[in-house]
């Protein structure tokens, strides 16, 4: 979506026309949802936060002043909302049914090449610890820097980097680069 098109959608929202929001929703649902999912790491919570995000966007349209790219702007709001949600719900639910479909962690030395080759990304992610999976999700899906993840989780940056590297190391054994 171009900047002009986005501004036009916002103007329609200002006139209480929901079609403006629908256009933004159609264009960016996947982008926003994956950012939020990357932080909250659980499907129901990600859906709730995504819903809140679009409602918020609708409500803030009147006062919205876009200076930078609208995509960056949307990503920042989505990320902040997800982080707020995660902090409020201090007991982080990091295991998702999407990932957790009865998959046992795989003992690395016993896995045969054929099995590794067939392993889906969700199965591979299920072999990681919760903390590692969260860092990988935040890094890959939410496109956050290590510093941002460190701040969001309140964990030293070295630890975050470390967890990421450990996760990548494990995933590499399963054929993921």
């Amino acid at each position, binding site marked *: 979506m171009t900047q002009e098109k986005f501004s036009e959608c916002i103007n329609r929202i200002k006139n209480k026309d929901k079609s403006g929001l629908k256009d933004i*929703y159609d264009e960016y649902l996947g982008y926003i949802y994956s950012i939020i999912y990357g932080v909250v790491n659980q499907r129901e919570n990600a*859906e709730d936060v995504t819903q809140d995000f679009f409602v918020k966007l609708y409500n803030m349209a009147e006062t919205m002043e876009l200076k930078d790219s609208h995509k960056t702007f949307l990503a920042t709001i989505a990320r902040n909302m997800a982080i707020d949600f995660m902090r409020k719900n201090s007991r982080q639910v990091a295991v998702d049914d999407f990932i957790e479909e009865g998959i046992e962690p795989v003992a690395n030395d016993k896995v045969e090449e054929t099995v590794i080759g067939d392993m889906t990304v969700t199965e591979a992610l299920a072999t990681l610890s919760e903390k590692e999976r969260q860092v990988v999700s935040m890094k890959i*899906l939410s496109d956050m820097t290590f510093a941002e993840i460190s701040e969001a989780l309140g*964990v030293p940056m070295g630890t975050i980097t470390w967890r990421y590297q450990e996760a990548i190391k494990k995933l590499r054994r399963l054929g993921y680069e």
Partner: protein
Amino acid sequence: MNKDLSKEYKEAVMNDLPDLWGRIEAAIDAEENAKTNGNETPTSNVINFSKPENNTVNTANKYAVNAYDNEPVKSQTQKKKKFRIPAWVFVAVPSAAILLLVIIPVGFMMMLGGMGSKMSAPTTTANYAYDASPAAPTTTAEAATEYYDAAATCDEPAVSEATEYYEEDSTQEYKNAVSDYDFTLGQDKLEGLQGLMENFDGTKSDSASSLAPTEREADSRVINDSVTVKFLSVYENEEGKKLADIEIVGVYGDYLVIPEDFDGFEAGETITAYLKPDFKDADFTEDAEYDCIINFVPDDEICYEIEFKTPSRTEDY
């Protein structure tokens, strides 16, 4: 066969996208309705004095429901006035409580403590003296016996001599006992602390504060992993810190590690690490292998710092 993690993960999430438009639309409608209703009928503080049959019942408004009776409506404040508590009660009750719960017990404890210390002091002194020199009490007791004997016989020089002996003897014994006791205790404590520090993080520490790490510290303690590495490249970052891309050739020895879930380094793994400032001027031979220690740097994206296992080896470089 290598697969693209980032691409596949994003695709997996995208394939599982929920349809939220219905929910979003409903939420916006609900908010708008709430706003509209809120502007037209701000019912929160409206009191309806009419009879129920003539009015719409707002069950959320308890004042309106109360007003369905034909009795005169009394506000919450009026009702409270019936049970008004005299002002002095608010001062007297807490004061009495403080007096009973704090001042009297504290006074009592202080009194007991004062008596206790008076009573226990000589005993303690005697115990120290006894511990220091088992023979001392006998000597002291003999001196005391002589004192009383002399006093009983009114032999003044003998009394004076016995008193001096008793005073000198007991003072000296007390000093000896205290110094011996403190010395032993201090030595034990010091050894205990040092042992604890060494066991805890593998390094000798100057400060006792390391005995009680915070949660954050516990999450990011130092590792010492003995490794053999090859230096692939050495360069400086924008801050002027020297960095090295290194390949792990071999891992030996034990390591002490936190953060959790660390599996240790693996041969063939390539990492980027800070070069410890002591070694920043060393030259590295390409493909040469060096024995190193790798430390964990908690607050940095590049979370490793490398130093040489045997500092003397840097002389060869």
